[in-house]
């Protein structure tokens, strides 16, 4: 977001720590479209652990964490786990061009929250913000700011939630 001069600067190192919510919160349901206008609802994934990520192309830490989300997706793609990356207020053409420039082309599901309705429902204040949702549809962990999502500690949390 802050141009090349900011990109050049050393941004905060991406951590791996996700914060456990003191009390699980039911994840608000939503229905959004992907790039091909296919509709996806959160409730379709009940029974899976979900990494729900709010992002935009103009957000540098979103770009930085995206490769780790793809690696995580690859590591768990045959398991009861899914990555849903919800773009904020941008269109498919723009996002398609953007993802083509990333070091790893994302194959996880990207959805479009064109009026930020879903991010408001999740009380997202800034990007990126990420939630880890358990198989019963409850938000269990949260991260504000970029993370390395394929860090062993994050994968351990996901495995724990999958085993519940």
């Amino acid at each position, binding site marked *: 977001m802050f141009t090349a*001069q900011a990109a050049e600067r050393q*941004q905060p190192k991406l951590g*791996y720590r996700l*914060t456990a919510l003191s009390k699980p919160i039911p994840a608000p349901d939503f229905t959004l479209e992907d790039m091909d206008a296919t509709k996806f609802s959160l409730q379709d994934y009940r029974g899976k652990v979900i990494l729900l990520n709010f992002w*935009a192309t103009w957000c540098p830490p979103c770009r930085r964490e995206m490769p780790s989300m793809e690696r995580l997706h690859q590591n768990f793609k045959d398991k009861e786990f899914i990555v849903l990356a919800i773009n904020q*207020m941008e269109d498919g053409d723009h996002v398609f061009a953007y993802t083509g420039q990333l070091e790893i082309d994302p194959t996880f599901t990207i959805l479009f929250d064109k009026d930020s309705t879903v991010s408001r429902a999740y009380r997202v204040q800034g990007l990126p913000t990420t939630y880890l949702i358990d198989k019963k549809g409850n938000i269990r962990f*949260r991260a504000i700011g970029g993370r390395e999502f394929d860090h062993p500690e994050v994968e351990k949390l996901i495995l724990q939630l999958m085993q519940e």
Partner: protein
Amino acid sequence: MQASKNILISALCSLAVLSSSHAADVSIHKNKESGLLTWTSKDDGFSIELIQLIPDFIRAIYNKHDFPVDEVERIAGYCLFGTIIQNTSQQQLSYRVSDWRYVDKKGRSYPVKTKTQWLEEWRKAGVTFSWTLLPDSGDFEIGDWQQGFTTVQLDRNEHFDFIYTWTLDGIRHEGKIEDMSCAPASLSTNPSKQ
């Protein structure tokens, strides 16, 4: 009379316990290509980085999001700083932009305009876009960080001190970055002269 004095002393003692002001560890980085400055301050579990942004960059950002031309120019008339804040402590930390301020060289203090205040003005201008600005407040857990624009409404040539606060373990901390300045109206062809 004595009772009032005791209450006053007690209140002052409480304030001393509940607030803390330290000289921040501030570093300044000058971009070799653009000449633009970045201030980084690290102190007591909280770090803040303020990056000068030129008006043309601001115009590009908001034009891209279909803001009305007048609104784009109004925003570009402010001094904007890319701002990165981070919880570097090992406990929960909170901040409120409404507690932040800047002080010009004549000693006049101004509150930092909040995202909520901006969004209200944007709504009146028919804008629904709600991102890019630093969120008004936040409760940061360990490792959380956030970024967004901070706006300062001073003449582009003025220098000022930026005062920011955060709360850690119930104690309100205050930091100050002295002698900051806005980005120039445009980039010089010779950054070393900026």
